[in-house]
């Protein structure tokens, strides 16, 4: 099981990696923005992508669209403060698999990960 975590915050990448570790996933790649995320994504196979929305260079929505445009149906979870209906609809229309609004309890994140992590 290999997971890509894309977030411009190193802290959030650590939090998510910790939660992945608690689910038994230790093979985690990281990227600091969408552009770097797409470069990493296109370099090796991933089972799950977890991305923030607001990032420099390329945001999470643009990354999601790029992943879907490439023909990939890999599960993508958006973890973001953007909870407005219009934003959520935009992400769904772009092909997001699941959505988690910050702040969240770490159990909420683990519950989401459990659905998509087959270890």
């Amino acid at each position: 099981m290999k997971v890509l975590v894309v977030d411009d915050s190193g802290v959030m990448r650590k939090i998510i990696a910790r939660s992945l570790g608690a689910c038994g996933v230790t093979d985690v790649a990281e990227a600091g923005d969408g552009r770097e995320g797409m470069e990493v994504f296109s370099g090796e196979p991933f089972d799950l992508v977890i991305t923030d929305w607001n990032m420099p260079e390329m945001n999470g929505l643009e990354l999601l669209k790029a992943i879907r445009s490439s023909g990939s149906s890999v599960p993508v979870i958006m973890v973001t403060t953007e909870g407005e209906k219009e934003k959520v609809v935009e992400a769904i229309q772009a092909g997001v698999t699941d959505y988690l609004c910050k702040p969240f309890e770490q159990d909420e994140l683990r519950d989401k990960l459990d659905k998509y992590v087959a270890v």
Partner: protein
Amino acid sequence: MAGPEQFHSRIRAQTVRNPQVTASMSADDLLAQVMQRNDKIQSPVVVAAEQSAPLGIDRLSECMRESALSVFSKMCGIELTLSETIKGPSPVRHALSGIVGMSGAMKATTVINISEELAFAVAEAFTGERPTKIDSDLIDLIGELANMVGGNAKERLSTPSLSLGLPTVVTGEGHCIAFSPDMQLSTLQFDTPHGPLRIELGASEQKNRS
């Protein structure tokens, strides 16, 4: 980077890599789940405020209070207790400030001012590691904290055409932060088991409310 054919071949391989783990929620279910969560965070105070009060410092203050309580409780397990609300800037400033702005329907600035001890406790709660000094990771953390508190408050305001800026972090005991002169100011003072937290707010009243 590999050529286009290798790239698309690799992508196609990814889609069948784990066929048991596929999207298990419909788009309607996912939207309903997020909207249900949003409904829960709209407190009666905010709902009542939407009906009569202008978009300004008082509504922002209430939404920021609720946001801070939620963020610190959910993300760090740290309970905040509001000890005082001051109409004006904070009389004291601690070592770290996370600053985030709002624009659009309202112009606002939020300063999350936090002591070293509380910042170290938050870092330990977030990552499992307690820092021993202010470093780039801790600065990143304070920025993320400001982003979450500001972002959650923006949702609670439930106002279209309101955008949140990227956070900035300032460090150093006694650092100065100046608000725009047209802003009304308010300071929320919280107590925590690890020391105080202050949230300073500046907001320009919405001019033409329809």
